[in-house]
């Protein structure tokens, strides 16, 4: 059926008409006795068929629509037992007997897999295989061991009788019904599991349909249980009517869900209007997030040919890089930005791509282009500063090694040379050996200090608190510590450590302070570090202060660093989010 793309109205009308007319005709013998139930019956058949066509028209749901159309006609056949004996001729009773329950299986399949075009889990597929085996196999077996009249049909109807056996028939029928109850309840469980694992937009999409499936599964199993335990006819009749009414929920749910999705698609049009008002990349990101219903979506801009950063200039995290990358082509076809979208939105790829195109077009306009350029300039400056700071740091380490430990060790070497020379000539080498020993001591101390400056071992092994205790102990003024004992991600611990060390070094060098205080607290996934002194103030990011380089490091972690300084001291504050 190639209804997609065109208006579905004609196809829906044709299929619904066929379904409605056949349903009305098959209810003819019962209209006078059961008018209300008949009306529900006609509605269920018609709406199943109509929603099937509607689903086929929405190309993203695959063949789920066919399942609903098949379910419509199976449902229709499942009620032929209401016919008078004179209608129950030829194959009709056997068809109703064998295929009546198929509406439940095939409809359940449609409900479980919507809005995906296929079942995603192996156990779900296995479930439907068992379901099919059960309703075909057991029904065939029952037909083989029974006469049509035992099942309430005209004795002259076509049947598959091989060895009629009344008690076997009774037992098999009961077992069949118990099986159906179990299968119906398992369907409920599968639907609940599906709700549990779905997220965001996907959950909103499938919720109405899944809820309908759960309701049908429950009430269907009640109804069959009522039959099985031969509850009084009023109860069975009422449950039958309620189950029929519940079945109506399924097509309505499909309709609601599909309408929601069409509305979302039309919101791209609203998006274009909204984007026109955006003055920053962040605005664009916010608008796209809302339209796509993905609050974690990231608009990433190209900082270099192979490198993207968030629109706030942060480097992308591993999780963000693993997302679905949708290019945002600009007017001239160049990709200046990408959207990093939750993979769940892949099935709405048309919507996502339209949104990306709409977003890409506005990135060309003046204000946003300026914002983009400004952001990138900032990113590049920051990356350059980080690279330069890294280089300067390496030079410093080399210089320290060269001037410190290396020279000491060379002197150890010359002292030992000297000692050997003396010993060979029978003179006392002990003074030279002692010098060598002292120099070795000193060299080791130098190396330890240097190693600590590169990366203090205790930080990686024990965390920020013990590492900072060591730092405080080596300071020449008293330092009060109030540091969380929680372990933080390595890059955060390391950055905080160096910021705090640098801030404390500045305090000692410049602030003429009598006392300093370090406070590191973790609250609501955000770590706040504060170094306060009571000195003469005047600290800043300029003038070769190591804090400027460290601010860049803090910013790559999406954090923020501020310095408040005045006559009665300085406070350096770092705030970093921890995921």
């Amino acid at each position: 059926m190639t209804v997609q793309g065109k208006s579905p109205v004609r196809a829906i009308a044709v299929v619904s008409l066929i379904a409605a007319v056949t349903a009305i005709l098959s209810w003819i013998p019962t209209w006078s006795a059961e008018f209300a139930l008949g009306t529900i019956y006609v509605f269920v058949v018609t709406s199943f068929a109509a929603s099937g066509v509607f689903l086929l028209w929405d190309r993203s749901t695959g063949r789920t629509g066919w399942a609903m159309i098949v379910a419509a006609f199976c449902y229709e056949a499942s009620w032929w037992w209401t016919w008078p004996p004179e209608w129950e001729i030829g194959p009709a009773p056997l068809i109703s007997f064998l295929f009546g329950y198929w509406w439940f299986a095939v409809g359940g399949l449609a409900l479980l897999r919507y809005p995906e075009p296929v079942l995603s889990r192996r156990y779900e597929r296995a479930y439907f295989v068992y379901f099919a085996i059960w309703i075909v196999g057991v029904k065939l077996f029952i037909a083989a061991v029974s006469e049509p009249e035992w099942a309430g049909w005209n004795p002259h109807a076509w049947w598959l009788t091989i060895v009629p056996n009344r008690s076997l028939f009774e037992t098999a029928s009961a077992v069949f019904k118990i099986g159906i109850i179990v299968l119906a309840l398992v369907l409920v469980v599968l639907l609940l599991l599906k709700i549990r694992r779905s997220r965001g937009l996907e959950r909103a999409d499938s919720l109405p349909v899944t809820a309908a499936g759960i309701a049908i599964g429950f009430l269907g199993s009640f109804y069959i249980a009522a039959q099985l335990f031969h509850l009084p006819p009023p109860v069975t009749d009422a449950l039958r009517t309620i189950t029929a009414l519940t079945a109506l929920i399924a097509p309505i749910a499909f309709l609601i869900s599909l309408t929601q999705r069409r509305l979302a698609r039309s919101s791209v049009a609203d998006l274009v209007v909204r984007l026109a008002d955006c003055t920053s990349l962040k605005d664009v990101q916010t608008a796209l997030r809302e339209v796509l219903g993905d609050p974690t979506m990231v608009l990433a801009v190209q900082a270099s040919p192979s490198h993207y950063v968030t629109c706030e200039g942060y480097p992308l995290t591993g999780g963000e890089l693993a997302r679905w990358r949708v290019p945002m082509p600009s007017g001239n076809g160049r990709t200046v930005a990408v959207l990093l979208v939750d993979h769940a939105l892949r099935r709405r790829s048309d919507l996502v791509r339209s949104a990306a195109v709409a977003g890409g077009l506005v990135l060309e306009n003046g204000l946003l282009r300026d914002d983009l350029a400004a952001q990138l300039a900032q990113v590049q400056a920051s990356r350059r500063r980080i690279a330069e700071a890294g280089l300067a740091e390496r030079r410093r380490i080399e210089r320290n090694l060269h001037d410190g430990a290396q020279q000491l060790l060379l002197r150890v070497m010359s002292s030992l040379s000297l000692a050997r020379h003396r010993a060979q000539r029978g003179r006392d080498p002990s003074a030279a050996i002692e010098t060598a020993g002292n120099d070795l001591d000193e060299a080791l101390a130098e190396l330890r200090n240097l190693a600590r400056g590169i990366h203090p071992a205790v930080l990686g092994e024990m965390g920020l608190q013990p590492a900072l205790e060591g730092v405080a102990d080596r300071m020449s003024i008293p330092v009060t510590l109030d540091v969380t004992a929680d372990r933080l991600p390595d890059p955060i611990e390391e950055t905080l450590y160096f910021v705090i060390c640098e801030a404390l070094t500045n305090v000692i060098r410049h602030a003429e302070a009598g006392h300093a205080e370090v406070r590191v607290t973790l609250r609501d996934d955000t770590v706040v570090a504060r170094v306060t002194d009571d000195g003469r103030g005047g600290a800043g990011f300029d003038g070769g202060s190591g804090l400027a380089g460290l601010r860049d490091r803090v910013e790559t972690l999406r954090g923020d660093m501020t310095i408040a300084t005045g006559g009665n001291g300085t406070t350096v504050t770092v705030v970093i989010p921890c995921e």
Partner: protein
Amino acid sequence: MRVALTDDTVLFREGLAALLRELGIEVTHQADNERELLAGIADDPPDVVIMDIRLSAHGAEGLHAAESIRRRHPRVGILLLSAYAETAYAVRLLEGGATGVGYLVKDRVGRVEVLEDALHRVAGGQTAIDPEIVQRLMDRPSRQRPLDLLSGQERKVLQHMAEGRSNNGVAEALFLSQKTVEKHILSIFKKLGLEQQGHDNRRVLAVLHWLQG
């Protein structure tokens, strides 16, 4: 022998001075930098100046200082010491004029005989290139290497030649007759496609260039 020491780290300089004195070498001057050294030796030049190649935080000022010394005191030998064995430094030094220059890694203070030998060669107007540098050049992998054409003995001769030894020096080091050494050298130059250089030190430079590729 009389030497002047220039090194911006007092620590090492004093250690070296003690060692040299122990070897019976007179340390006439100690200086922090080029200017101090030139002022110090102006009236009373030593036989050899031992100088750190890095005289400040910036880099290889020692090379510059070597040129100044050579201009003012052509007869003073120059032995540069470096914390790192860098071929580029050695070649630069030799290119500046190859009489009485040497380039040693500072670690050689641990091997008195190497240090002494180098000092004497430099004082005698010859060349002394750190064995580590030559060894590393000869061990360089993956080049079109006619070096493989050399016999084991020839390779040893080449190594000593590259370190700056004269024919005589090579002969002494390898316990060979001078004639044998000359034969080897002739063969080496032929195999490597090098032109015979009359002067010992120009020969060192040619060999180093060749080894550098």
